[in-house]
């Protein structure tokens, strides 16, 4: 009788032997007590292994700490800060300038930069205007009706308005084309409303501490208020359509201009850039809202008169904002 082959017995019990070998081992186990004992032991080991392996399933999670991501390169924060500053300064500059130019009070000499034709027509009477038309600039608009508001709104947004009654006022010779002025007025109104919306969104974050609203809620409320103001304004256009076109324009612009004037100057903070140290210094103009968001998100840290990055290095010093 051969000595029991433990590997052969395990293979037999695992069903891995071909029929010939399996029959041979089966015969040995049946006839030889040593082979029978080895087979019994092998059965016990297989059962024990199964049970022990089953106990391995009660394993905890997160035993091994995950591999931490590689630290970002130092230039990464610079890219983020630069992008943030660029966006903030760009938005503040682009949005603010047209609004301030549009909202100059009557009587102030227009700036050399060419304003839009519609605004020029609204602010300064052209030689072709009649004195009555020019005087209408300061007229007070009567309250608008719902019907007129609805009609005027579609008019202001540029959609065609059917059934619009022709002007009851006698046509003034030499007066600017009414249809063109209507379109221009609608453009101006839309532009102003858009400007006010943008300014409102920018300023909302800065105001959230005062009114307790979240930035999104504040922006929504501001936008809603602007929409109402714009609606009332353009409703005036419809209600006053029997008067001269210039009167309508003046009334349309007045309340929107008031709202825009409030929002046209978002609170700004100015910083003198210190990074990189060997570069020419320049002034960064940040809206308070954008700065607050950056501080809240941890991209920047403001302490005293200094602005730090994440690695606690000074990137800019607070300075007084001067007129651009």
């Amino acid at each position, binding site marked *: 009788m051969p000595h029991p082959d433990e590997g052969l017995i*395990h*293979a037999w019990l695992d069903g891995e032997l071909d029929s010939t070998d399996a029959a041979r081992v089966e015969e040995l186990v049946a006839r030889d007590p040593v082979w029978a004992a080895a087979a019994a032991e092998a059965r016990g080991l297989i059962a024990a*292994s199964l049970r022990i392996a089953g106990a*391995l399933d009660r394993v905890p999670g997160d035993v091994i700490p995950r591999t931490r991501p590689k630290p970002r390169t130092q230039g990464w924060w610079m890219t983020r800060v630069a992008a943030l500053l660029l966006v903030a300064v760009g938005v503040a500059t682009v949005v603010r300038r047209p609004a301030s130019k549009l909202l100059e009070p009557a009587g102030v000499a227009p700036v050399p930069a060419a304003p839009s034709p519609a605004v020029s027509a609204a602010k300064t009477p052209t030689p072709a205007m009649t004195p009555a038309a020019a005087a209408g600039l300061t007229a007070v608009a009567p309250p608008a009706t719902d019907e007129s508001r609805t009609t005027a709104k579609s008019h202001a947004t540029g959609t065609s308005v059917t059934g619009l009654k022709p002007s009851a006022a006698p046509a003034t010779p030499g007066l600017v084309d009414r249809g063109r002025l209507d379109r221009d007025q609608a453009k101006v109104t839309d532009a102003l409303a858009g400007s006010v919306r943008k300014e409102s969104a920018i300023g909302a974050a800065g105001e959230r501490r005062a009114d307790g609203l979240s930035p999104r809620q504040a922006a929504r409320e501001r936008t809603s208020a602007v929409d109402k103001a714009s609606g009332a304004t353009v409703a005036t256009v419809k209600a006053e359509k029997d008067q001269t076109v210039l009167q309508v324009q003046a009334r349309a612009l007045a309340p929107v201009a008031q709202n825009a004037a409030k929002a046209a100057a978002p609170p700004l903070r100015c910083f003198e850039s210190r990074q990189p140290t060997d570069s020419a210094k320049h002034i960064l103009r940040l809206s308070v809202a954008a700065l607050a968001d950056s501080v809240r998100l941890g991209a920047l840290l403001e302490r005293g008169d200094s602005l730090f990055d994440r690695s606690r290095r000074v990137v800019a010093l607070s300075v007084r904002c001067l007129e651009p």
Partner: protein
Amino acid sequence: MQTAERLFREYHATLVRYLARRLGDRDWAEEVAQETFVRALRQETIVNERSWLFAVANNLVRDEARRMSRQRRQLVLMAEEAHDTDEEHAERSLELAQEAADARHALEQLGERDRQALLLKEEGLGYGEIAEVLEIEKSSVGTTLSRARRKLAETYEALQDARRRREQHAAS
């Protein structure tokens, strides 16, 4: 896509269990299994799916497991100590945790090839597949398994005996 779904459905559970038993960390096992299936999707042709998947999973964990074995043992011990000190833990749960810890220790006493062969067999792989995964002769799988099973059982029993003796000593 159908192939991916079928592979996942057929082999994901068993692959994760195998890896969890081998690594002692279910989350890690899940990650390795996912990476294995990602690689399977990139593979154009797979002759034997099961052995291919297990072989790739083995390759994925081999180097990292070797590198982190010391840290893992230490952390497992710490986890056990924290587990043992949890007074609110039920007695049965503690017993199960101790069994798991003993099983883990016993498994780690095996050689790498023996451990893999044993765990692969527990997942239902045949001798041919185990030989393919471990790149060994099929005829040596039986011997490898018998050696692994014996050592596992004996080490586990020794650990259990030692634990019982400690408990008796503490009780007396």
